[in-house]
């Protein structure tokens, strides 16, 4: 599904990713772990298409289609979703209205009509229940005054609504207590199918107790320095990142 070859990228002339190779197939869960400053956030941002980062070398395709030339919204229409570490608040725009706007923007780009209101409502209700969000929450302004846990649950709710091919979860566990973490992980696991894929980006191993990865990659100084199975995460937790260098 996602193929990244020899990817070099940076910001303002400073190289942060120094040759990333990564292949994610449908039905797989990958985790990227690494210390602060290793390039984790840069990698997720570059996949999602953030303009601040400049790709200097390498290629990146989604189902064979070149992602490099696409705007972030166009990548979203192709099925890329990123759960943000710090979601943005939009006062005055309800979560429901926001997700309607997002879904219909995608449908429009793909040449479909807007989703009928009844179908939208049904879907919203279904997915909200999955994430344990009540109705009052959905009629509140997007992320406005939400707690850290509420914001993260809202991100996964949006993921559930948008049904992406590739979901990148960027530090989704930060700021979550154990109950919220379980709810979020349970939501993600329910959404997992053989046709989609998940890339978990995390500093700590604890989220991987609940979202079990098929592969764990260790990122250090802009390169993937080690790849293993889920047991690699535990080893890192025990020995720290120093061990890998």
């Amino acid at each position, binding site marked *: 599904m996602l193929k990244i070859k020899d990817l070099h990228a940076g910001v303002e002339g400073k190289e942060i990713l120094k040759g990333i190779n990564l292949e994610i197939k449908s039905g797989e869960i990958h985790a990227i772990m690494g210390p602060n400053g290793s390039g984790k956030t840069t990698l997720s941002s570059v996949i999602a298409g953030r303009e601040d980062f400049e790709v200097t070398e390498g290629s990146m395709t989604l189902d064979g289609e070149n992602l490099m030339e696409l705007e972030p919204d166009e990548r979203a229409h192709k099925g890329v979703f990123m759960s943000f570490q710090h979601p*943005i608040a939009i006062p005055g*725009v309800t979560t429901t209205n926001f997700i309607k706007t997002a*879904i219909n923007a995608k449908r429009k780009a793909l040449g479909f009509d807007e989703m009928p209101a009844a179908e939208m409502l049904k879907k919203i209700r279904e997915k909200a229940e999955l994430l344990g969000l009540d109705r009052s929450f959905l009629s509140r302004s997007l992320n406005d005054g939400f707690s850290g846990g509420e914001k993260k649950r809202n991100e996964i709710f949006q993921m559930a609504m948008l049904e992406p091919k590739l979901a990148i979860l960027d530090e989704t566990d930060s700021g979550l207590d154990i109950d919220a973490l379980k709810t979020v992980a349970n939501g993600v696991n329910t959404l997992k199918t053989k046709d989609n894929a998940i890339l978990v980006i995390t500093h700590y191993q604890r989220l991987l107790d609940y979202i079990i990865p098929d592969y764990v990659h260790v990122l250090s100084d802009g390169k993937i320095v080690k790849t293993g199975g889920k047991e690699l995460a535990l080893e890192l937790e025990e020995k720290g990142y120093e061990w890998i260098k």
Partner: protein
Amino acid sequence: MNMNLKDKLSASFLAFESNYGVDTNENLHQIRTHAMDQFEKVGFPAKKNEDWKYTSVKKFLDRDYSLFPIKTGNVTHKDIEKLLLKGTETYKIVFVDGVFQTHLSDVSHDQLDVCILSSAIKKPKYQIVFNHYFNTVASKEEGFSNLNTAFTSEGAYIHIPKGKVVEKPIQILYITTDKEKEVLLQPRNLIIVDENAHVQIIEQHHSFSDNFVLNNTLTEIFANKRAVVDFYKIQNDNIKASLVDNTFVQQKEGSNVTVNTYTFGGDMTRNNLSFYQVGENINSNLNGVTMVKGKSHVDNQTNVYHQQPNCESHELYKGIYDEASTGVFNGKVYVEPIAQKTDAFQQNDNILLTDDASINSKPQLEIFADDVACSHGCTIGELDKDAMFYLKQRGIPSKEAKALLLFAFTNEVVKRIRIPQLKQAITDIISEKLGVELEIEM
């Protein structure tokens, strides 16, 4: 060759006075005459005047305005429908080319006076109240205010008696048509809200003409003890219309007055808004949203005079300037030595969408009391990149993403509107300006 506007106004004054009757109200005659003398002394403001540094009225002074429209345009219900509040009953005071329109209005004398100033000037039963309040808080120095006072003849007169909570909002509508070429109109509003009374008022000036229009309007608002007044100004006029709005608010003990200024259009809009606190435990609120493009120029001058202890003022103005539009915010807060325990807050935030747009923002605090909490802030910036990326990542294209963020920016002010139907109407205007459909949290 045309006379310049000042000379023309001077020359017209006597004719105006005799036309409107010197005898009907001797007190008013004296006030007008004095105001005319003052205007002749100070004239129109020039750029060397610090408060007019960024706003020029020069181009208006060479126009050959009709000062007293003789012909009145024919305006129907249908014409003004889009300017009226939908989904709720309202009182309406509608003027066309300066003349009150009975068939478009819905006034009241049933326990409250929602009517016209010309009646209040003439009829003995209103004269006592009129003479007691008229021109007592308006500026006696400034040019435009004196000019309006000198030519006072018509406008809205609203008197809410003690304890009356007015359920229906009152809409004041000033329409200009193209019956005359270039026209200068000077409406005058007098609003008196007695003890414990509540009222909500919406004022709009709108030109249906392609000709130049200049409105020099003046409103005096008197809020007596514990009165609650919400005043909304909707300034969404066409590009040939300019407005100088002078609003003076006098508040007594325990009163709560909010003036909301929403500016979406017009050529030049200048708002002079002053609050005078003359009792304790007063709350004054000033909210503003400016959202303009083209070459529109919007200048908001606010003055809050804290003259008694234990009072508050809250001021929040937000501006979005697109294309080559320009803005000014000059917010003055005066805290007199006696005004201990004052709580004054002021914030002015602006987004410039192009390199050609500009804003001059100047907070000005003069504090002479020591036990006070005063704060002010001012920001000028572009759209937040992180926020744009977030929205685009969700599949929302640039144009819609930008619109959502600008809407969110204004929402902090819009959500303070206490008339739901008006909140919807303002949201609709903002959506239209942004070119998107928005559904809001009510």
